[in-house]
């Protein structure tokens, strides 16, 4: 605790007014088991600002109608709001063109789309797909499914005991048989920020395209897909303060153009006869059926909200909070952090000696502190560190140092109960 308090005030995140921000999030202001809620499960899903809630309510209250097909005013308004959101996403991740922004259900669906529409037609027996040892199940299983079907092989970039990718081994794994590299930008279970620019450069030097799983990166850092030069980028709305059930797949236009549709149905066609169907242009070719219209519009509201604060300030604030929390954890006897990479996002995955993470989670919950316990949909990561599960506190820019102090006090209580 002492060392944590020594961090000078000036490092407290570039003048972010946290108390003002907290007022924008209604769910933060409630008691849990008689204690004020300390929400530290942001890597699972984030809370929503009033602006996002208002956008959802506003759509259903005033503009509810289907998009891309109505001649009436409500449909016009809904279509405009939905397509405005697409433009916001385009600017937010600095994509070249809005046709490269495909609305999906979330990062998981985005990755499945690439697996089925890009990898599946391309893969030959003996080909390889390269992922990393720290992937979420959503960036493992879709590749396993296509690899098994096509007789291809899934290869794994190993990591070291800090939870950092072994870049030398990555280079040597980039053989002529690799058809795609798919890695996470930020690990949900460890917090590691991967050197994705270098990963992409090395792959591109061998003409191998790269998909980034950005689910844990987009809410916390500025993302520039043009500068990264990634070929695909997938992320979810609900982890970036937007609603559940909507996400984005970015893909380079020439790759998306060449890919067959993922699902068939309405909106993804330009003409249909029983003999032949002509598919719609991008991005609609990949958006079959009525989408999550309200969710898409509210995602735009989340982007507006984040941009008003500024991603650089959010990143700086969260980094300071992580430094504070890491220092606050250091004196805790019998507590070990899992994931100690030099480049880390606001994730504290930890284990307490002799106490199962599930028991840690129950005791913290009684203190009003919400964390995640379990394998975090990353069982291979748990196996690597020889733990069945971890407890994970994950930060957002509405969290405070006082909440970190409450977490540390809660962990001391765990030790007390189990003493």
């Amino acid at each position, binding site marked *: 605790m002492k060392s944590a308090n020594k961090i000078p005030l000036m490092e407290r995140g570039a003048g972010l007014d946290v108390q003002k921000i907290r007022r924008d999030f209604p769910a933060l202001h409630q008691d849990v*088991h*008689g204690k004020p809620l300390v929400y530290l499960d942001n890597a699972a899903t984030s809370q929503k600002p009033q602006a996002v809630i208002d956008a959802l309510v506003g759509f259903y209250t005033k503009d509810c109608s289907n998009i891309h097909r109505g001649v009436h005013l409500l449909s016009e308004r809904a279509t405009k709001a939905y397509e405005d959101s697409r433009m916001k996403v385009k600017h937010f991740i600095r994509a070249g063109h809005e046709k490269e922004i495909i609305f999906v259900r979330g990062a998981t669906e985005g990755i499945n789309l690439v697996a089925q529409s890009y990898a599946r037609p391309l893969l030959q027996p003996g080909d390889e797909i390269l992922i990393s040892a720290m992937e979420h199940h959503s960036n493992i299983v879709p590749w396993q499914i296509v690899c098994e079907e096509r007789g291809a092989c899934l290869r794994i970039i190993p990591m070291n005991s800090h939870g950092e990718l072994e870049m030398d081994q990555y280079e040597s794994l980039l053989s002529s048989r690799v058809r795609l590299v798919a890695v996470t930008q930020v690990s949900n279970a460890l917090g590691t920020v991967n050197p994705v620019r270098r990963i992409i450069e090395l792959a591109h030097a061998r003409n191998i395209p790269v998909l980034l799983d950005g689910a844990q990166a987009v809410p916390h850092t500025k993302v520039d897909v043009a500068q990264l030069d990634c070929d695909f980028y997938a992320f979810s709305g609900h982890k970036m303060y937007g609603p559940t059930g909507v996400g984005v797949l970015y893909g380079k236009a020439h790759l998306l153009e060449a890919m067959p549709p993922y699902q068939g149905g309405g909106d993804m066609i330009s003409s249909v006869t029983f003999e032949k169907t002509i598919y719609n242009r991008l991005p609609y070719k990949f958006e079959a059926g009525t989408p999550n219209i309200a969710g898409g519009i509210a995602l735009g509201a989340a982007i507006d909200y984040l941009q008003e604060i500024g991603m650089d300030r959010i990143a700086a604030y969260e980094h300071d909070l992580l430094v504070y929390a890491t220092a606050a954890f250091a004196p805790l006897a019998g507590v070990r952090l899992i994931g100690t990479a030099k480049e880390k996002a606001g994730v504290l995955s930890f284990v307490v000696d*002799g*106490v*199962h*993470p*599930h*028991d840690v989670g*129950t*005791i913290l919950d*009684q203190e009003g502190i919400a964390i995640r*316990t*379990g*394998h975090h949909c990353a069982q291979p990561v*748990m196996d690597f560190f020889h733990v*069945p*599960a971890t407890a994970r506190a994950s930060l957002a820019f509405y969290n405070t140092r006082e909440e970190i102090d409450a977490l540390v006090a809660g962990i001391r209580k765990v030790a007390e*109960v*189990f003493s």
Partner: protein
Amino acid sequence: MPDLRELYQQVILDHHKKPRNFRVPADANKHADGFNPLCGDKVTVYVRIEDGVVRDIAFQGSGCAISTASASMMTEFLKGKSEVEVARIFERFHDLVTGKSSPDADASSLGKLAVFSGVRDYPVRVKCATLAWHTLRAALDGSQETVATE
């Protein structure tokens, strides 16, 4: 507000730290695996049944305090019981931890197992308390599939 001490009673913490019958019996004639994917708890329950009576029962695995203590106390409680009694006790134990019966009603028939009555206030932990029991039932039924509590 439920008191944590109701859930983590001393006897539960004791069985968690020093689980009883934590071994692989050489002469077990039935066993089954259980897994709770939510928290990664794993348990294997071994039994030796002779003439419909549990002559020996033991377990292996890793899990949270509730699941380990539950497995440990289950093995102590069921040794010498008939298969019919085991089924009846499991039903009562299940009612106890899910809050379908009052702790007092079961105190006499469930003996020490009544310490698990605190679980009723923690619905997500019911699976922890019953994993070993579901696994035991699978072992007695001769099931080859891993029991999953989800």
